[in-house]
């Protein structure tokens, strides 16, 4: 069960498609950057900005806004594209990604773009900051929610687990971690590089409430996140199972697309596929 209507869902699917197109265009313009993660998290970011979060693009520093932290800063193109497509800045600005003087730094920087909430890139640090924000909210009696998007591979960092311990100690039910469980990292499969399974059991053992879902199914993710957000007494983690490179057939499931951008021909092909997908979404409604 979720709070979506059929019309909402179609709108969100179209938005996710826009977000993916923005990712491809910005990566092509940048000539460097990560492809697979941003594409596979497009549905999650669309659900967050388009439905789940309390926020106001015309007032990005609204004190009561939900906080969204991107711990794995290298998938910044999905956040930038989602922010542009939901009204934080013009979509054309996406083409400045990674360029001199741009607010869209290779990894997000709060000082140049305050609505990214924090500076990130060095892995394993986002949840710890989210713990601080969630605890600060409780101290001041504020009711905003803190969402932290993490990669699966950054669960190899010690600091992340210090944050998991601390979130449990303070029973931060206003904190939800979302894991992009795509099983890839720069050097290959997470389970070859440094095994993370049994993933959910680790969080349960640390006294978090664990939810799992298809991170590329917007309706299922929203339903899961709404259940997580309303959970009392514990912080929650949503293990969002995703397909790396989702939406671009030749990238899907291939870890080699973790850390590189498409060239011009590859970008054309990706944008053709995404345009065709857009037609299918409209035809189904």
């Amino acid at each position, binding site marked *: 069960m979720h709070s979506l209507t059929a019309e909402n869902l179609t709108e969100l699917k179209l938005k996710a498609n826009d977000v993916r197109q923005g990712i491809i265009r910005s990566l092509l313009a940048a000539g460097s950057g990560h492809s697979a993660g941003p594409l596979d998290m497009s549905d999650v970011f669309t659900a967050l900005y388009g439905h789940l979060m309390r926020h106001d693009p015309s007032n990005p520093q609204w004190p009561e806004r939900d906080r969204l932290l991107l711990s794995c800063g290298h998938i910044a193109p999905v956040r930038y594209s989602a922010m542009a497509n939901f009204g934080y800045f013009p979509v054309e600005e996406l083409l400045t990604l990674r360029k001199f003087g741009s607010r869209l730094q290779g990894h997000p920087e*709060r000082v140049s773009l305050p609505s990214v909430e*924090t*500076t990130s890139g060095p892995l394993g*640090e986002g949840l710890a900051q989210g713990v601080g*924000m969630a605890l600060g909210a409780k101290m001041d009696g504020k009711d905003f929610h803190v969402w932290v998007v993490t990669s699966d591979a950054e669960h190899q960092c*010690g*600091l992340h687990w*210090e944050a998991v311990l601390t979130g449990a100690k303070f029973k931060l039910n206003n904190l939800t971690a979302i894991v992009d469980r795509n099983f890839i990292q720069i050097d290959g499969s997470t389970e070859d590089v440094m095994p993370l399974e049994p993933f959910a059991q680790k969080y349960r053992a640390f006294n978090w409430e664990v939810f799992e879902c298809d991170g590329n199914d917007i309706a299922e993710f929203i339903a899961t996140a709404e259940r997580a957000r309303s959970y009392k007494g514990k912080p929650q983690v949503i293990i969002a199972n995703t397909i790396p490179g989702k939406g671009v057939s030749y990238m899907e499931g291939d870890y080699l697309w973790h850390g590189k951008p498409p060239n011009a021909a590859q970008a054309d092909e990706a944008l053709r596929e995404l345009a065709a997908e857009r037609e299918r979404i409209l035809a189904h409604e």
Partner: protein
Amino acid sequence: MSSGTPVLDAAAQRMHLADYRAADLKLVPTRNGFGEGLIEAGSRSRDVLGICADLSESTRFEGFKKAYPEQYIEIGVSEQMLVAMAGGLAAVGKIPWIASYAMFNPGRSWEQVRTIMALNETNVKIAGAHAGVSVGPDGATHQAIEDIAIMRVIPHMTVVVPCDSVQTKKAAIALSEMWGPVYLRFGREKSAVITTDETPFEIGKAQILREGNDVAIIACGILVYNSLVAADRLSAQHGIECRVVNNHTVKPMDEAAVVDAARSCGSIVTVEEHQRQAGMGSRVAEILAQHHPVPIEFIGVDDRFGQSGDPFELVEYYGMGADSIVEAARRAHSRKK
């Protein structure tokens, strides 16, 4: 006033110093000053927090914890978490002080300090306790003598090393009320209290504690006292009159005071309980190499690690005692053209 000692000179009077030559000079750990300052800062603002990584007694968090339990957070042995969590708390309006031994924070947490505190420009305050070899018996693993170097190199960071417990208290209050990332460094052992409640304190403003025109001794931390003792010996035994500068703010350093010391005295000795490389003295040398080159001698640990021992035995052994400062000043003086 003890018999036979000179009265405090005009500079010392201007600075309202204690009679540092008195036989009954008070000895108080600088960390006590931090504890007192934090309580005062906590009373002035409910947003001031203390976050502790399992060292509440030795970092002197205990009084704050008792006075303001709702402003105190204990997170166990996790120094990277200290910095990152404090970044999150600062992002929602808090003024978090995070305290551990300097060796672990910022020693262990340096990348988080750089990214989350400095690049991200957050209002997080680090208290680095147990700095220097004067930690004593705990040995080299717990003696931070590289921390000034790793903190002064970070953009936006303010680095303060007060000379005694009274000044550490003032620094803790002033840094709480100043916006921005800061590092306050202090020590474990009882050390001479040379300033008083009336002594002025301003972040970024070095203090002349003693006048003299032959050599300027520019010092920070608890070795400011050794510098004053050395200056008296240099005057009495060698006829060398030293200006003694308490250079408590390592970053941003009071460049005018450093250049003025070089112009007035013509030679410099820097004194710090830290590696000679890349510390306070190195910053003095950078400033003078550019603006007014004069002979400089450096007092500090000479590219070695510490070890277990009595705190002040170690200070002497590593060449930071008053006699070592006397010899360095004589060398600096003899190198003047």
